[in-house]
């Protein structure tokens, strides 16, 4: 008996793509927020922040995401708080991406020349005024492409929460379910690849548009 690819299968993949997108957005927002705080804290002259958060960033970026998943999961289990894999997946993904965002944010803040910051303070701005009106707009624009790259990486990495058996299945897990049934790995994987490709393309495209608008505004201002 042979199985064929049905409309339902297609819908399962579309749903999977939706879950992938959702996971990316949720973990992306939380992780960016956390990463921003960590990255900023590392640029203050506080040595405790600098080294402890440096270790946080280092550890996150040196351990495979799968291991972070299972470690977090089994830690919560032995601590007496077993968690739904989908939720623990989101938490781990957020922490994971925050480590990378922190480095990008730090680089962005440091890319703003000291003289610019001194000029802002010289105008009577407070530390926080200088930070939010001068450093953030300039620095974050500089690292915006890197940040976009991180979000693309995050989207691809969401495929790993399937390892925990999280449901509902995201794109790659959905594809696997279909493969197991109809035994046509090549076609389904190509299809999944196309989905990822399109999603990456859309994000890259909008990021590029956004950057162009910035540039045009800047040029118009000159």
């Amino acid at each position, binding site marked *: 008996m042979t199985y064929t690819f049905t409309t339902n299968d297609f819908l399962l993949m579309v749903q999977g793509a939706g879950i992938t997108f959702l996971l990316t957005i949720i973990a992306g927002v939380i992780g960016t927020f956390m990463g921003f705080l960590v990255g900023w804290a590392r640029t203050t002259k506080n040595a405790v922040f600098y080294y402890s958060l440096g270790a946080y960033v*280092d*550890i996150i*970026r*040196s*351990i*495979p*995401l*799968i*291991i*972070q998943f*299972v*470690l977090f999961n*089994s*830690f919560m289990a*032995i*601590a*007496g*708080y077993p968690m739904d894999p989908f939720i623990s997946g989101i938490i781990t993904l957020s922490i994971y991406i925050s480590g990378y965002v922190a480095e990008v944010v730090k680089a962005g803040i440091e890319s703003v020349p000291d003289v610019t910051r001194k000029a802002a303070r010289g105008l009577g701005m407070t530390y926080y005024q200088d930070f939010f009106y001068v450093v953030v707009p300039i620095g974050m624009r500089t690292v915006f492409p890197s940040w976009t790259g991180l979000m*693309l990486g995050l989207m*691809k*990495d969401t*495929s*790993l929460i399937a*390892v925990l058996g999280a449901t509902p299945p995201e794109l*790659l897990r959905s594809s*696997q379910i279909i*493969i197991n049934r109809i035994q*046509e*790995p*090549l*076609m389904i*994987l*190509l299809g*999944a*690849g196309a989905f*990822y*490709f399109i999603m*990456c*393309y859309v994000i890259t495209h909008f990021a590029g548009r956004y950057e162009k608008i910035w540039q045009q505004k800047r040029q118009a201002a000159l």
Partner: protein
Amino acid sequence: MFEYTFQWRVVWKHWPQLLEAGLLTLQLTILSIIIGLVIASVLAVFRDSSNPFAKYLSVTWVALARNTPALLQIYMAYFGLGAFGIHLSPYTAVLGAVAFNNAGYLAEILRGGFSTVPASQKFAARGLGLTATQSYIYITLPQVLQAVFLPIVNQVIWAMLATSLGMIIGLQELTGMTTFLQSQTFRPFEFYFVAACMYLVIAKIATMLAQIVAAHMFKGGADK
């Protein structure tokens, strides 16, 4: 909470297996980077080639490698290629897929490296009487090397992390072996914790070595 007692002795008992798996991870990482670098050099040259086929190959490779998950690439190598009668072992599939991925990223790194050396450097070198080849070897290449060094080190770490996906198709590299051992002993936290430490140590050693090498090789610092 915390009625759990940690048991580390069982991990110690399986230490030789973990160590061996760690070496396999290291081997996969190094091989995938070497293969990736060789292919990336070709792709970087092809990218600016006047031959449309070469250019197209390069653009497609880079786009595919960068815009799909590494896990999907591993599935493709392991399950997908079966449609063409190609059946790879888990080892070859992981090595091939991670090298494929590395090549895509490294090609972009190399291209970026060449674009950091201004054309005026070549003019200055030729103006002193250096031949085109000499100018390339003594002026352009050292500067490219400096520009790409740290990004390549990052890619090495990334490749190491990516080899952990081998676990999913049953390869017993560090993560795969850990998964296997914890399933035998029902001590997931202890085993994964030790594996995490091993990854951390490998990554730390790699970055420290890289920093030492960089400090000796690149004393000029960035041009301003």
